[in-house]
């Protein structure tokens, strides 16, 4: 059985008139990294909320269809139960800070306390993730006194530390410096290798191309396509949905460098180089 199953999901916020999610159906397998791409207001964040249960438990409005995560029907369980299986990193890291603890260290500990992790394991976990996201040096600062990027790192660390089976990342690197964002994607790759299922919303198509196994293309709440990065980014009508392929792909398109057999364009620098050399 798939880890995530979405069947005919429809949703609109209480005071909106049009559907923000319009009849989505897909499933995600264990250990898979599913990329979600789409223009602004396509409904990406709302879809993340729906997977994590904030829709419909917190954001009311009209809801239809069924979302199942790890066998739990999201609509029928409280958020407290759902979060045992799912971690969500918010688009705005400021929204992730609980204010319950006075230090970055405590903020990361908070989730672990709530899930009842034994104390002796706690310190090693917290330190591991603080170091992984390079915020160990600010561990004693108040979470609200951080720079934007530092706060985003702490937000990711605090969710990762809970080691959920399904991890949803809503533009997790939007405020990170280039190396920081590279590090985060490396971590994502490691985690999927260990069987974690990841949903990744990103505007950096280069990263989606590199790390996502499949890509869901959303537009005005509708599921336009769900396929491999090569297929999605080779679509010639991609721009109509407000999405631009990775820089390599658009250069390859301009130069018509593509795989002779499939007619698909390369999506990473490595592939591009290989094709160039083959010529």
């Amino acid at each position, binding site marked *: 059985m798939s880890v995530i199953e979405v069947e005919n999901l429809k949703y609109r916020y209480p005071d909106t008139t049009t559907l923000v999610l319009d009849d989505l159906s897909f499933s995600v397998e264990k250990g898979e990294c599913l990329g979600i791409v789409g223009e602004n207001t396509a409904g990406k964040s709302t879809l993340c909320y729906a997977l994590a249960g904030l829709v419909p438990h917190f954001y009311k409005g009209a809801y239809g269809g069924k979302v199942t995560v790890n066998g739990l029907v999201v609509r029928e369980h409280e958020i407290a139960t759902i979060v045992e299986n799912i971690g969500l990193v918010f688009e705005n890291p400021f929204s992730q800070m609980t204010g319950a603890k006075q230090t970055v260290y405590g903020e990361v500990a908070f989730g672990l306390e709530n899930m009842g992790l034994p104390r002796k394991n706690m310190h090693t976990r917290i330190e591991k993730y603080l170091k992984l996201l390079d915020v160990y040096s600010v561990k004693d600062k108040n979470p609200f006194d951080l720079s934007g990027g530092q706060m985003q790192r702490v937000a990711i660390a605090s969710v990762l530390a809970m080691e959920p089976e399904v991890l949803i990342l809503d533009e997790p690197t939007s405020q990170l410096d280039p190396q920081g964002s590279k590090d985060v994607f490396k971590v994502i790759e490691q985690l999927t290798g260990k069987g974690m299922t990841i949903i990744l919303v990103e505007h950096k198509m280069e990263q989606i191309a590199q790390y996502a196994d499949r890509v869901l293309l959303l537009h005005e709440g509708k599921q336009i396509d769900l396929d491999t990065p090569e297929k999605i980014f080779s679509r010639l009508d991609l721009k109509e949905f407000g999405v631009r392929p990775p820089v390599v792909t658009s*250069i390859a398109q301009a*130069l018509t460098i593509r795989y002779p057999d499939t007619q698909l364009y390369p999506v990473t620098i490595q592939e*591009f180089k290989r094709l160039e050399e083959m010529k």
Partner: protein
Amino acid sequence: MNRFKLKDIAFSYSPDVSIFEGLDLTFDSQTTAIVGQNGAGKTTLVKIMKGLLKPSKGTLSIDGESIADQTAAQLAKRVGLVFQNPNDQIFKTNVLEEVMFGPLNIGFSRFEAEKGAREALKKVGLESKVSDNPYDLSLSERKLIALASILAMDTEMVIFDEPTTGQDFAGKEKIKAIINELKAEGKLILCILHDMDFAADVFERTVVLNQGEVILDGQTRDVFPEKNVLEKAYLEQPYVTQIAQALGYNDSFIHESELVAFLNNKK
């Protein structure tokens, strides 16, 4: 305004850690991108320029005239800052009122303010949202509203703190167009960015800030080939440059079109 100058600036949030110790920087009519590691002090720098934070040492001057004794409110007529987090900037429950707030405070008439606000909203493509509550909009839309509220004030200098965060391709194109338009109007433009491709594509000058110090400052085209310095500051080269290098071309390519033209010529 022709020149905004910072001289020998020192600042710290807490006594034991200093953010700047004797920083010198001058901004002029060249559009400038500031890039640097998380926590480098970029936001702190622009808050100092805006008068929201007071440096413990050093002078700030506009066209040679010190602005030390000006309050943030007085400075607001001349310098606009779009905040990194729109939630820190937006406080009204109606989009149009939010965008009109600044202009009304710096002496625009209601009529002028509304006209300016509608124009600004049009530039960011949100004219249809005038009567919405900003809290019911997505983060990327709120970011554009924050941007429009500063545009509407029509200040001589405009500072953007990571404007492209969370923006899709079209959003970035809009911001690019706005920056170029402001430049054509003769305004001073300063922009903090983590998006190297956008920095390389749009700005004439690039400043690399690392741990409160300027470690590189020059024409964008000369800055981005400096791979080693960039890496030291936890940065990367733009994708275009990376692709060119992977293919074995060491010339400095910073626009996609340049590389395409170059490769086309090769064939």
